């Protein structure tokens, strides 16, 4: 049964006429024409810089408690205040952001290496490979939402932490989250390649005797590159939220190391005395979600030939 997925506004699925032979440089230049995209890009870049260099510049410890300042409101000493154990909120926020963004980077790398590649090969070669990839994706789709990621991190979490420490846990979280997103990417790329395969220029290239390698590298990849970039950018928003969910369920980054999701839920009981502790991490998280979605939308418009 074939059916067209609905146009959801945020992740729009491309119809054949949307396919953009967009070179990355041109894509980027066109992106900068939209003011919202430029602002989002700047804010997101700022968040990345804060996460990367913030802990170097701001040297307060993220885990050491300051018993003289428990649940403190923002002050000169603790710029964003402290949590219920007297730990500095800004320091925790900065390293929490770092965790969120590293997980997002890992997941999108896996998404492209695994999801996009498998989708491309399945769509291009068809046959048994196609059946296999589609079937595996279908099985993974049967698990609603984060269920599979929750199962995998719940079962392997503690032993991975014991053996490989915090970094291992981070990789496990990223790996299990990519179980949720790579099938989507594979399906998207596959359907795009199936459409491309029927286009005249592909037939022309084939009749000129192009090898499979040349076909994929010169004709297919340049034409699906745009949607892969758009889809992985948009996916960052859900990965950041999903990582927070895993952490607040106790499955992600382990305390005392900070994670945005855990910071928010840990601060909820103290809402009445110090709402700042909920506000700052929530605002940071929403800022990431919004800027990334605006960026993704901007990229999609920039790669859409009809909008040029």
């Amino acid at each position: 049964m074939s059916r067209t997925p609905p146009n959801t506004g945020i992740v729009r699925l491309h119809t054949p006429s949307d396919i953009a032979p967009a070179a990355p440089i041109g894509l980027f230049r066109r992106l900068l024409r939209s003011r919202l995209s430029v602002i989002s890009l700047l804010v997101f870049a700022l968040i990345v810089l804060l996460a990367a260099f913030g802990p170097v510049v701001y040297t307060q410890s993220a885990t050491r408690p300051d018993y003289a300042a428990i649940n403190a409101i923002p002050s000169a000493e603790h710029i964003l205040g402290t949590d219920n154990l007297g730990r500095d909120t800004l320091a925790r926020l900065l390293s929490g952001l770092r965790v969120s963004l590293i997980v997002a980077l890992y997941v999108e790398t896996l998404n492209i290496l695994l999801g996009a590649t498998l989708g491309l090969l399945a769509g291009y070669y068809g046959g048994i490979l196609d059946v296999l990839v589609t079937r595996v994706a279908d099985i993974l789709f049967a698990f609603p939402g984060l269920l599979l990621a929750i199962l995998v991190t719940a079962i392997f979490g503690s032993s991975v932490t014991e053996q490989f420490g915090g970094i291992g846990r981070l990789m496990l979280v990223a790996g299990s989250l990519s179980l949720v997103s790579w099938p989507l990417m594979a399906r998207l790329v596959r359907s795009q390649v199936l459409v491309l395969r029927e286009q005249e220029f592909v037939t022309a290239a084939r009749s000129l005797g192009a090898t499979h390698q040349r076909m994929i590298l010169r004709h297919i990849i340049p034409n699906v590159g745009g949607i892969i970039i758009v889809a992985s950018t948009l996916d960052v928003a859900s990965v950041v939220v999903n990582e927070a969910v895993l952490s607040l369920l106790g499955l992600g980054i382990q305390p005392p190391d900070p994670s945005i999701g855990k910071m928010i839920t840990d601060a909820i009981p103290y809402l009445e005395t110090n709402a700042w502790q909920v506000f700052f991490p929530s605002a940071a998280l929403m800022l990431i979600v919004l800027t990334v979605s605006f960026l993704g939308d901007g990229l999609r418009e920039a790669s859409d030939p009809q909008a040029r």
Partner: protein
Amino acid sequence: MLRLILRRFISLPFVILSVTFLTFIVSYLAPGDPILALMGNQRDPEIYARLRTLYGLDLPWYQQYGEYLGGLLQGDLGLSFRFAQRPVIELIQGGLPVSFGLGLTALSLSVLIGIPLGLVAALYHNTPAERLIMALILALYAIPSFVLIPILQWINYQVYLATGWSLPAAGWGRPEHWVMPVVVLSAASLGYIARVTRSSVREVLEQDFIRTARAKGLPERRVRWTHMFRNAALPILTVIGPAIAFLVTGAFVVESLFSIPGIGFLSVQAIQQRDYPVIQGTTVILALSVVLMNLVTDLLYSVVDPRVRLEG
């Protein structure tokens, strides 16, 4: 039509088998010896052997999976490690009505509000009404449930300070316990449903047959209800699948933050206590109920849209 239903039902066992197998194999590969963990400081080899047999862990993996499947068919999901070796199915049966009740209420609420919102946004294109609704949709998209919960509780607290009356912050049992969890659960899927409705309606409004209907002088009401909405309704149906997926993930967060004794809370407790049979059981039950609901949606879709029937 009949062929389509048959084909869907033939692929159903395959999906169920793969879902149960994947869940089983992940739990089977769980590192560490669960029986040793269960026994704590006790090191009696005889008890160890007896417990291993009780949980069926002395069998090779394919036999374990066979037993597991056989049990599943009879509604037996094994024994819990923690809750005094109670059957997992008993624990799940306790939580299932709560989670289903919450999920269904939230889903109906988000459909009842989301579809009219999307319709209004599409019909009043480029008006303040549309901009307002789009801003709401964007806000709902950007505010995850675990951020919405503290926002609501903060408002609740302010109301309490002003009037001396408030909703309970957590707990279960009385009708007022439903209000906040249902609002939080429906928020995410509400925004999604409104968004899909709006774009689906806008897409239909740009079609030629709408222009034709208007050109031949049909009253606008007829154009909207007969020509537009009936065609726009088809893609809207597909949101129910993703909306249910939102609800399942939402249930974990909402139930554990509000201490609601549903399946999500049960799983989170099982995760913290490394009660693998319970984690495995809740995963299988949730995945299977979603597989079944997706099947119903697909069938409904082909009933409503004759084109799907032809292609099927």
